[in-house]
């Protein structure tokens, strides 16, 4: 374990371990969307999520996949695509100032149907000295994506699009719960050295 080849082997092992441990099977895309709707509805009723109920319905769309142009592939969109992290694009808003969106691709031709890709990105409130919006993105790239060759298909980006770290084996619903309940933003002064 001392050179790049070794690192590639390590990546392959981590990738395999992570993907094998992640629950990606679903009953179908419609039911997955409904499970997400339930989760978001409850969070809204608890004021964890600031979006109103009708807004959640409008943000959460199920449609044929825009990535794979074949019958039986669908995607759940939670908010619109937002590559530039513009707050003007519809998204989910949390009580602590964070905001997020996501997209999930489901292959319903496989038995059982399976999640084959997703991206979840949460953005944190921008501090006075921050140049860019701090964020965390968790990606499961579609099969045959170039990152699969590097054994980095399932990874996260810690506030930097160029840095990829293997993702823990979290399903989309688990990531959503983490965004809603596991990312308490504390006053920065509490964590800064005095």
């Amino acid at each position, binding site marked *: 374990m001392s050179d790049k080849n070794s690192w590639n082997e390590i990546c392959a092992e981590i990738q395999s371990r992570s993907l094998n441990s992640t629950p990606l099977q679903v009953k179908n895309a*419609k*039911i997955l969307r*409904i499970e997400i709707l*339930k989760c978001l*509805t409850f969070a809204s009723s608890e004021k964890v999520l600031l979006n*109103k*109920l*009708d807004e*959640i*319905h409008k943000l959460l769309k199920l449609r044929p996949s825009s990535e794979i142009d074949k019958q039986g592939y669908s995607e759940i969109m939670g908010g619109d695509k937002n590559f530039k992290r513009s707050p003007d694009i519809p998204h989910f808003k949390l009580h602590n100032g964070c905001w997020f969106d996501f997209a999930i691709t489901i292959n319903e031709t496989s038995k059982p149907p399976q999640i084959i890709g997703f991206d979840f990105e949460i953005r944190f409130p921008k501090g006075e000295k921050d140049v860019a919006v701090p964020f965390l993105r968790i990606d499961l790239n579609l099969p045959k994506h170039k990152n699969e060759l590097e054994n980095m298909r399932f990874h996260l980006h810690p506030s930097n699009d160029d840095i990829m770290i293997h993702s823990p084996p979290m399903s989309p619903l688990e990531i959503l719960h983490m965004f809603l309940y596991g990312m308490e933003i504390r006053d920065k002064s509490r964590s800064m050295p005095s």
Partner: protein
Amino acid sequence: MYKLFSIDELLQKIELRPSDSNSWMVLVVKPDDMQSTIEDLQDTVDIFSECETITISGRSGARNLVKQINDASQEYFLLHQLEDWNNNEWKVFDGFRSQLDKNTKGGLILLSEQSTSLMLQNSSNFVSWVSSRIYYLDKDAEILTAEECDQRLIALQEWSGKTNDDVIVLAENRQLPTDPEYGEWLILLNRGDLLERQK
């Protein structure tokens, strides 16, 4: 009777019903939407009711329907196919109203507009009990462009003589008239949350 524009809205109401109450709802559906609505709900309602759900047909009459509810081990009920019920059948159903109170989670009844009319005329106890939880599903009304929304808001203002702000103040003070148009108005203003306060 409040309008709902999607099954999502109904499911959200089921999820947010008081957890300790036996909450029944009625969903009025257009004939063309009946089959797809029941199929959608069969797949999804138990996720929101958070308990085992059974679908029961009303084709064998009110007495038999209530017996099936009482005998079932499931806690939430999806009732449909009540379209053949006449005045008398709805009166029989009304006589069993108190028995619906015995389960813990409640249920949902799917009806056509015609059956709803018969229910309103013949099941006064049941109607009084569900009162604000009778909803009309109008899936077609949801797909409005921004321009269509504005046109509809202007039409509602002309119809009522009220402004958008008047309607929001009325809703905030729980003084909104019960006409379904006011529910639609709040939705168009993106203030569907205020509908919950009207109960």
